[in-house]
């Protein structure tokens, strides 16, 4: 199945939003369009290869996400291998990591993430209000084109688990929710990255991040 939602000649880049059967893709699609992208919502691997950038969205549980995306797993790894920008949002970001503590994810039945950024997703501590839901601040830890023009702005979060990359340098921004956690992560080459928050729900700050992403795609 493939739906092209916009076909503007002025588009700066063509972006694929991976449709693996999860949730509402409308907001992220509109956000990307507003940021100047031509968007195709699809799970067709041929489209991934042709796109200037690929977005892996997602809400819900790690196990369901990984299982639902299993049929495009190899293709997503190839996107990363080819250097095409791969952008995970929320659960999509968590799926870029090696594994997660969510949902009895141990032993033989454990599901593995894409392992494009090595690390684990862990749950917020007992006694904290979970999910971490609402607007919280981004502190930029290092340079990355995704955070061009961003520092200290607020973004909208909804999550119960957070990424702990093995290499602390993978954290592009951190956010404080009784502990500091990585709210944007990126691999060493900078071509695989993700936001724990929802840029498509984060007002002007989110749109700036989506514009930065489209720019990255256009220059890739």
């Amino acid at each position, binding site marked *: 199945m493939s739906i092209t939602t916009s076909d503007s000649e002025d588009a700066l880049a063509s972006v694929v939003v991976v449709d693996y059967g999860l*949730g*509402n893709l*409308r*907001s992220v699609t*509109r*956000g990307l369009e*507003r940021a100047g992208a031509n968007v195709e919502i699809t799970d067709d691997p041929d489209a991934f290869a042709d796109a200037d950038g690929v977005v892996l969205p997602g*809400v*819900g549980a790690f196990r369901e996400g990984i299982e639902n995306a299993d049929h495009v797993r190899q293709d997503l790894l190839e996107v990363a291998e080819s250097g095409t920008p791969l952008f995970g949002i929320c659960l999509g970001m968590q799926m870029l990591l090696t594994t997660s503590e969510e949902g009895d994810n141990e032993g033989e039945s454990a599901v593995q993430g894409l392992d494009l950024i090595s690390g684990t997703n862990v749950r917020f501590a007992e006694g904290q*209000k979970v*999910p*971490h*839901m*609402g*607007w*919280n*601040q981004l*502190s930029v830890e290092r340079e990355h084109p995704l955070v061009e023009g961003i520092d200290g702005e*607020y973004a*909208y979060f*909804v999550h119960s688990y957070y990424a702990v990359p093995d290499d602390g340098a993978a954290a592009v921004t951190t*956010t*404080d*929710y009784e502990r500091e956690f990585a709210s944007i992560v990126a691999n060493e080459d900078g071509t695989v990255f993700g936001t724990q928050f929802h840029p*498509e*729900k*984060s*007002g*002007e700050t*989110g*749109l700036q991040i989506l514009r930065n992403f489209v720019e990255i795609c256009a220059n890739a």
Partner: protein
Amino acid sequence: MVLTKRIIPCIDVDLDDDGNPAVYTGVHFEDLKYTGDPVEMAKAYNESGADEFVFLDITASAEGRETMLDVVRDVADEVFIPLTVGGGIRTTDDIKETLRAGADKVSITTGALERPELVNQGARAFGSQCIVISVDARRRYDEGGEHYVEIDGESCWFECTKKGGREGTGIDVLEWAAEAESRGAGELFVNSIDKDGTKDGYDLPLTSAVCDVVDTPVIASSGCGSPEDMYDVFTEANADAGLAASIFHFDEYSIEETKEYLDERGVPVRL
């Protein structure tokens, strides 16, 4: 850095005499006044610094519902902040349709009171983060309640009502709030029939009592007449979010000045 308190404008949408969607603002859940076009208002609030946006369908008719989903789509296309949609949601299919139309969360009142399993089903299928349980509370000064609070020397309890306060249920709001949370509600939306449209402040005893019995975020609603009312509900009742309609719709206060007022007094807000 902490999670900020959220300021949320809310529109009540009905069909006008020509069948076109229009925003109305009510007093005591009655006396509706035409306020504007839903999509235009959503657009304006998206630009104004609102932290979320709530859209309530008050048509409560099958034909109205189809039209409303179209309006939700149009609103969702303009709003790059979280969008909650409520009104007439009774089944998991209703939840699914509403989320597909672009809502990030659904707000459920009567549908959940009449069939509490809907909360579990919705949370399981779509995640707790998108299931908001809304209560329309009314103060009762009789002996039918479970939990009593003192208000101005009188002992009262809070009853869940249906149909915008027109029908009582005998269910204690505090019992229901705790049950809804245990069934998987991700947020509680607390309206007060006594305060709605009065603009003399939120029902602080009600909001505070609900905040005490649940851990999920509580959105206070009904009665906001000024930034000071927002301040009170955040600091005295510990609400996570404050919802308001008329003070923003009729430009009595802007969202920006409300946030500045709160910021100056040490309430964390997104500026």
